[in-house]
């Protein structure tokens, strides 16, 4: 039963990969990478219980944090073309960063 659930999550992760490769706009790719990461968190939990050794959930916590940070990093890279400027004050973003750079 748990192995079936783990394989189901695995299938949904591969569907996310398909969206990541096919996604027209970069935002689709970013969304699927983020969703892929949050599914790995669940897969670790189910895999741990399926293997009968459930006490490695620290790695799942780390995954949740890393997934969040990486999404923010890539998003900030893509929207503001700099890692250094803060998001909190009024910040002017790159105009044509819609989906795909027209010239890229």
């Amino acid at each position: 039963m748990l192995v079936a659930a783990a394989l189901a999550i695995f299938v949904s992760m591969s569907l996310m990969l398909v969206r990541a490769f096919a996604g027209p706009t970069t935002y689709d790719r970013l969304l699927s990478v983020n969703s892929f990461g949050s599914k790995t968190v669940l897969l670790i939990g189910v895999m741990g219980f399926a293997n009968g050794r459930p006490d490695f959930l620290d790695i799942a916590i780390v995954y949740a944090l890393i997934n969040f940070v990486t999404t923010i990093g890539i998003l900030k890279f893509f929207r503001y073309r700099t890692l250094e400027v803060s998001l909190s004050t009024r910040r002017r973003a790159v105009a044509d960063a819609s989906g795909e750079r027209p010239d890229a």
Partner: protein
Amino acid sequence: MEWTAPLLADPSLLFGAALLVMLAAILCAIVVSRKLLTSVALTGLFTLVAALWYIAMDAPDVAFTEAVVGGGVSTLILLGSILLTRESAEPVSPSRMVFPAIAVILAGVAILYAVGSIPGFGDPASPANASVGRDYLERTYKEVGIPNVVSAVLASYRGFDTLGETTVVFAAAVGVMLLLGFGERALGDPARRHEALNPDLVEEIDHHVVLRVATKIMIPLMFLFGLYVLFHGEVGAGGGFQAGVILAIALIVHALVFGLSETMRAFPAAAMRAGASAGVLIYAGVGVINMLNGGAFLDYDFLFPPPLEQALSGPDGHAGQHYGIIAIEIGVTATVASGITAIFYGFAGRAPDIASRGASRGPESGGGS
């Protein structure tokens, strides 16, 4: 006792096989991808799934390190470097791909030929697993007294090598500082330079309130979790390196959301430099204390003079080992956390230099000054 392959009956082998196929798929996508942003995001995914595969292969410590270091730090550093260089690689003409392809195929065939003779996958009777591996599994609890054999070997049996590894992280931080500076230029007015960097800016509407509030909730949790990983390293998966990187990532996410200048006011680059060197000092200092007490360098049984050793040690009598390992893990955490933060400061703080010197960047400008 002959061991026969369970033919995927064991769930972990089933997961391992499925994850390997996914790894291969991601790698094919990386090979064909041309935009560097796509390559970096896929590399992050690759290390994420590789860490999952490590969990299936019963290697939680390695999975922890791969997830934290491979998924988090290398993705962010690659992003920083792409910002400072160009955003898509030039397409390589197929004619120039022929020779590398042949070389790669020949190397692959050679390795596969050699791999044919090594023991089967998962074979417990293989020389590595049966003799040396088991020897450490049996001796560790008696000699070092901590359950996590990987941490015991890393910190106690092979402590000198881990000292070298910590020094490598310190040297890398120094190297990046020398190459890219300390990032203190970001303390000036980043907004004005940001506009100079991107002439085609448009009015921004949101102040990212949700992001700021969520990050304010997350950062203390990440610090707490980093310390938990540090002190939990003997019992469960974790240890100095993983804890150091988690603390560094907590700082990096603060810099991403609240701006590098804000973070550098709270954690100045000078503190990062001091932390990196202090970590190596703590590590080597513990070794010297052992020598003062008559033991070998980094032999924690001599960490405490005999009367103190008896007083402190619990039933299994390894107080020196316990405290010694925790002490050097603290040293490793200090070095790794401040080293990786210093590296991020270097990369993130470098963007304004290029703009101020007029060297244009980004794909549309192509060749530079």
